[in-house]
Every structure is written in C-alpha cells, then in structure tokens.
C-alpha cells in the first residue's frame, strides 16, 4: 500500500502579508483576515518561506534550518508540526490539494 504524500502548505495567493520587525520579534498583518500576529524568528521564517513557495513540513524544516543556520532536529520539526496547523487555523496558510 502506498503511503500518502505529506500535505503541502502555502500562503494563499488572494491576499498579502505585511511585515514589521525589530530584532528577533516579527509582527505580521494578514490582509485576508484583518488580523495581526506576533511571531518569533522561527515562525516568521517559516511563514515567509511559505509566502515565497509551497512546502511540506520536512521541506519547510530544512529551509528554516538552512536560512536561520540552526540545527535541523526533532525539536524544530516538532515545533513546525504544531506551528503550521496554527497558521492554517489563523488563515495564514492553506493546504494545497
């Protein structure tokens, strides 16, 4: 039996995200929902990566680790596994069908 492909995620193309950052704190305004969110550096890098192109969780972890020059370990993977569904719930990303 074939294992299902891992879901891919991306920022919806119908609206834009507006960013403001100071040091390692990021604020993003979602023009789609009208909501504003405070993100840490990992969450901001993940969302900005999904803004540029779609990715599954493994790809996303690799990109974030490379961009921030941090270790790709279980801790980062677990964090992104929690984070991306939160992004989805907040309307910041969508699952590609």
């Amino acid at each position, binding site marked *: 039996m074939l294992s299902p492909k891992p879901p891919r995620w991306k920022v919806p193309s119908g609206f834009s995200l507006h960013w*403001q950052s100071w040091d390692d704190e990021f*604020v993003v305004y979602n023009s789609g929902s*009208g909501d*504003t969110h405070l993100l840490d550096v990992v969450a901001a890098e993940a969302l900005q990566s999904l803004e540029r192109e779609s990715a599954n969780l493994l790809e996303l972890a690799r990109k974030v680790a490379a961009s921030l020059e941090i270790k790709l370990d279980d801790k980062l993977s677990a964090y992104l596994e929690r984070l991306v569904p939160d992004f989805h719930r907040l309307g910041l990303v969508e699952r590609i069908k």
Partner: protein
Amino acid sequence: MFAFPTAHSSRFHQDSSRRRELREGPKDRSMTIQSISSLSPSELARQLRDQGLNLGIGPFVTRIQSTIPSVVRGIRLLYAGYPIEKDSTFADFHVHLAPPRGLRRWFRPQVLFFFDGHVPFKPLPLAQAYPFFEWGLNWCVAQYANQYLILHAAVIEKGGHAVIMPGPPGSGKSTLCAGLVAGGWRLLSDELALISPQDGRLTPMPRPVSLKNESIDVIRKFAPGVTIGPESADTTKGTVAHMKVPDESMARVDEHATAAWVVYARYDAGAPARLERRSKAQTLLHIVRNAFNCSLLGERGFQTAADLIDTCDCYDFTYSDLDQAVGVFDTLLDEGLLPIS
C-alpha cells in the same frame, strides 16, 4: 470591534484660518473671531437652545444644542476659549442633549444624547449630563473620523516631541496627562490620538481632561491654578470632573506634532517613578488591536501604526507621585534622551 461607517472626508477638512486668527488676531480688522467667552451667559444659553452653536474643536466643527443647565455651564466654563464657527454651513457632528419626554422628566430625570437625530446610547441620570456630553463627543470622533488612525490614548508634547500614552481606564493615564499638562506640557488630546496615515503626524484635539475619583483632588493639590469643572458623582466611572485645557495648548491647536515616545503609564501606590523599555513588536500588536479603527483602515492602518512605532521609543512607566513623574519626563526631555526626529 464595531463596524465603522466611512466618514465623508470632505466634512473633516476644515479651514483652520479662523482659529489661527483667534490666536494671532484677524488679518482683516472687519473680521472678528468669536469665542465662547465673548458671549454673555444669556446669549450662550440662547444659541445653545435655538439654532445650536458651532464649536470648533481641533479639526472638527460640532454643532451643539442643549437647554440643560449643567451642559450650558460646563461649556461656558470649560470651552471658554474655543472658537465659534459662525460661518460654517455644516458641522461634522450634530449633538443634542435633552431630557426624554414623558413622566421621566419629573420622576428621576434623565438625559439623552442625540447624534444626527439618532440616540446611540441609553439615557443617563440628568446629573451626569455634562460627562455624557464629553463621552458622547469622544464616541462621535472614534466612530466617524476615519481619515485618522484613532488610538485610545492621551497625547502631550514638549520641545517638539509628542508622547502618546495609551492605557485602559483606571491605569492612571489621565492623571499623569493632567499633571504633565499642568506642568507645562502641551495637551493635544486626553482620550483620542489622531494619527494621519499620510504623514504619521498627530492632529491636536484638545478637550477638557477627564479626571476620576481620587485623581480630582490629586490634581487640585498638584496644580491649584487649574480650572476644574463641577463633579458628577455615581457615574459608571465613579465621580468625574473635567480639567480645563490651558490657554497655551489652545493657542497652538493648529500645530501638528510628531510622536517620539509611546508610554504605557500605570499608577502603582507607593512605587517610585520607573521607566522601562518595552518591546516594539508587543507595542505594535497592542496598538493595532486596540485602535478604534485599525481594522477598518486595513493595510493602511497597520502601516501607519507600524511606522509610528518604528520611529518611537516605547516604554512602560510606573509612578505614584505626580511631582516625581513629571520630573522624570522633564529630565528625560532635558537630557536629550528622546529620539530626535
């Protein structure tokens, strides 16, 4: 969050030349600018009773009608230096305070606040008519002046540097604002910061400073020379009284200002005055989520707030002693620790 109707922008771009003339004197001697203080008590009462009075308050013209004595007296005392916009054919806000009809007039009398002929609030006891007028005016601006990003915040200025002081009711923001204004800072607003999305500057809208409960006596003792109107007891905020805007702030009502600081003030009994930097990102989040109309302005609102925070230093300020608090602000300003724009 409320759904905000879009304001008719043309209503809000008033020619400020009349107010400037009030300060500098008319260019043409045949023209004279009247202020509330130029009217006799009976003439003021007549105009408020009949056609209404067009009062210039910062960038807005408000047409006020009322025969309620406490409202008439309050306007006479606390708005004495405000210009009467006699030639205005329109007003931004039409406000009328009147008792409800029926037996209520005689039994536990109440007051209604009419806005453009509508009644947006439940009636209050007649004894609270004057604070109702002030609260209602705040509501008018917060609801309809959507050409500005509007924050629930006091704004003061000195030496070209404006301080925005957001804060929930009861935080001590108004007391500190009144103390700083009595101590020589210019009042731009006690309740509503009006920020232009075009250039990020602050538009003055000085109105009487709302003081509550113990703050009334604190300010009376701190600045015996200031004028404070009558107290209204048993309001939802306790006992309320309003401090008159100093003449110096009124004279500079047309001078916009650039924000240098965002300060979250909090009264803490017995605590020494303490200023601590706070996160800009946290401050932006709070500003965006608590602005009256950021969601209505959308991306423009967010960008206006983001630009504001980017150019300001942000602080938490705890205080208990007003002298000490004013001293901290003045010292910081004197030592040039404020960012120079």
